[in-house]
């Protein structure tokens, strides 16, 4: 397939995954602030914006942190070029560019989702319409994933859709974990207090992990076992290890299609091995923040290696 088309598919799925994760982050934040004092709510919205890398842009415009205002900024504000609506728009534009490499079902799923969402986000977001919009974002991602799974040939195009999805997902999981741990827990005195538990609950919810975690850990709620779960549990579909096992399999498929490996394969192999050989003790000995920063950088390196090996750009 064309390098440009591979790139369009890769980015289509990255943007969809990004939009979905952003919506989930807002949902969790919204839920948390409903049960907290105003100070805590401000802190929560700050951390959401920090996770998304939007804190500076937001604070340049506003000095207060009302929930509807933050959500409006993240979802649709024109002066936020990384808003969720524009992510969905970019996913659709990439889908259009790759139109002859995706099925009609996949195209209709993204196109209809985009129509619904641009309609919902025509007006400013209020707390009454927030859930509807967030639901629509998650639905478009779900629909595209479902139609992709059910209708696409398992060929190169499918492989690049998987690569885009899991590179982005691994990045978001790492960032969410990092921000909560690093920004919100400056001093260890917080650890174990009710606030702490609430924060960790939000982390889990941001990753749709609360039920799975509870089911496996029966009442325990501490940084170490949560980090263990989100980084190393290969059964949880948003854990770093899970994302990398998907990436590993997909890269192996590509090597099979092409009859040869690219440089990105070697990079991935080393990186994946390090990830699988580590333990939560090792991670905390070295420092969770350092580990996650390192992971995010390596993940980014892998993404660029894929782009240059498979000729995304001329």
């Amino acid at each position, binding site marked *: 397939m*064309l*390098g*440009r088309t591979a790139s369009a598919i890769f980015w289509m799925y990255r943007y969809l995954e990004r939009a979905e994760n952003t919506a989930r982050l807002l949902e969790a934040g919204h839920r948390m602030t409903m049960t907290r004092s105003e100070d805590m709510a401000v802190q929560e919205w700050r951390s959401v914006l920090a996770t998304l890398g939007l804190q500076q842009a937001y604070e340049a415009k506003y000095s207060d942190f009302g929930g509807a205002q933050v959500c409006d900024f993240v979802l649709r504000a024109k002066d936020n070029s990384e808003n969720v609506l524009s992510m969905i728009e970019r996913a659709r534009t990439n889908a*259009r*560019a790759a*139109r002859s490499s995706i099925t009609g079902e996949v195209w*209709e799923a993204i*196109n209809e989702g985009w129509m619904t969402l641009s309609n919902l986000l025509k007006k400013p977001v209020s707390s009454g319409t927030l859930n509807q919009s967030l639901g629509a974002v998650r639905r478009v991602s779900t629909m595209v994933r479902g139609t992709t799974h059910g209708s696409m040939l398992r060929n190169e195009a499918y492989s690049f859709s998987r690569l885009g999805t899991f590179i982005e997902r691994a990045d978001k999981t790492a960032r969410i974990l990092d921000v909560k741990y690093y920004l919100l827990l400056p001093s260890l005195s917080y650890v174990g207090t009710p606030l702490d538990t609430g924060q960790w609950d939000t982390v889990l919810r941001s990753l749709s992990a609360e039920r799975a975690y509870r089911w496996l850990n029966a009442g325990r709620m501490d940084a170490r076992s949560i980090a263990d779960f989100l980084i190393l549990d290969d059964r949880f579909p948003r854990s770093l290890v899970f994302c990398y096992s998907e990436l590993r399999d997909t890269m192996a498929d590509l090597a099979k299609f*092409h009859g040869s490996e690219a440089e990105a394969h070697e990079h991935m192999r080393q990186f994946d091995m390090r990830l699988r050989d580590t333990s939560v003790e090792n991670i905390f000995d070295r420092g969770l923040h350092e580990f996650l920063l390192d992971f995010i950088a390596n993940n980014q390196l892998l993404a660029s290696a894929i782009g240059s090996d498979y000729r995304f750009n*001329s």
Partner: protein
Amino acid sequence: MHAPDGSVRGPYAEYQAWLDEQEAGLMRRKTSEAEGFFRKTGITFNVYGEEDAEERLIPFDMVPRIISGGEWRRLSRGIEQRVRALNAFMHDLYHRQEIIRSGRLPERLFRNNAAWLPQMVGFTPPGGVYTHITGIDLVRTGPDEFLVLEDNARTPSGVSYMLENRETMMAMFPELFSRVKVCPVSDYPRRLAKSLAACAPEGAPDKPTIAVLTPGIFNSAYYEHAFLADQMGAELVEGSDLRVVDGKVQMRTTIGFKPVDVLYRRVDDDFLDPLTFNPDSMLGVPGIMDVYRAGRITIANAPGTGVADDKAIYSFMPEIVEFYTGEKALLPNVQTWRCADPDSLKYVLSNLEELVVKEVHGSGGYGMLIGPTSSKKEIQEFRAKLEADPENYIAQPTLSLSTCPIFTKKGLAPRHVDLRPFVLCSPDGVDITPGGLTRVALKKGSLVVNSSQGGGTKDSWVLED
């Protein structure tokens, strides 16, 4: 749909019978259903210069335009004759120019024609085919009387609407199709792929690689480019995907460059090769014309075929058909006055109120005067333009075009239509898909059917009889 005496014409009888049985309100409901269908599938076109509505729908009318099998067979013969003549004419223009030597066609006509390419002189495209795809615009002026309005030999668009309009009609009215037997159009992409493959250059593999060259997602016809590539199983490429490597045009795939044998290009000649034509073009492939002239790629349609789109050349088509086929043209032209000719100009100037005046190189319904519907002031302004540069214009009578009913809020109402069948040409022969694109003027009394000017489309049925 109706004969002059008001009775329903034969081909429409079964449709009318079906329509009479339908409850009121069905058509209205189906119209909005169809619009949703189009939006969902993304069948849109972009209008240049309108920021707000970046992607618009072409209005679709639910009442089919119906042609009997007998009418179609007669039409097909005329179309085939015309397309064969066009290809022979192109070959002659770029070789010995017998038609000019014989005095049948004035030399100035193509010497002044920007579409005529000196780079094509003495070169024969693979398979000898110039117009791989031709769209012949026809209008009907009476029972069994079709006239050719225009020959689109450059890159005729609209075929995706022929296909999607049918899909829509079948989705909306399945029971209608079990009652009326309509020739299918859905295998057009397969026929196109086959016809293009048959035009592959010498030395190409048995299964040549076909690619559709699009200017990109912001082009007004991008939907069609993607649709055709998808339906043909061809690659959809942009100029930046292509490069000349080892004397062949190759596309940048994920594992390196891969040769393209047949390029169905949807960019104009001028943008095709910045080394040969417009040096600022980002849409083309530097050096593709050298590869082409070395016989190592097929470009469809061949560069330089735009000469036939010229309305002054059009006025000579009856002579052209006769010159190359030795037969009288089966499909007549619309009577045309060439304003370059002093007597004609005199006639045109004194009858502007009655005539349609068009620019020789114009298209899309722009830059024309429709006398009967224009104000005195508009006519005066146009008169000045015409007098300043008569060679640039031709004039035609306002035809009593046939109408076809459309569905309006007040029920069915007649509107003017034209028909564009799509014709494929390869060394294997001329292949005409039974059907075409029917464009319809949505405004009462209007004769302008172009989608860029608010025209709509209809499904076009050729009956199996």
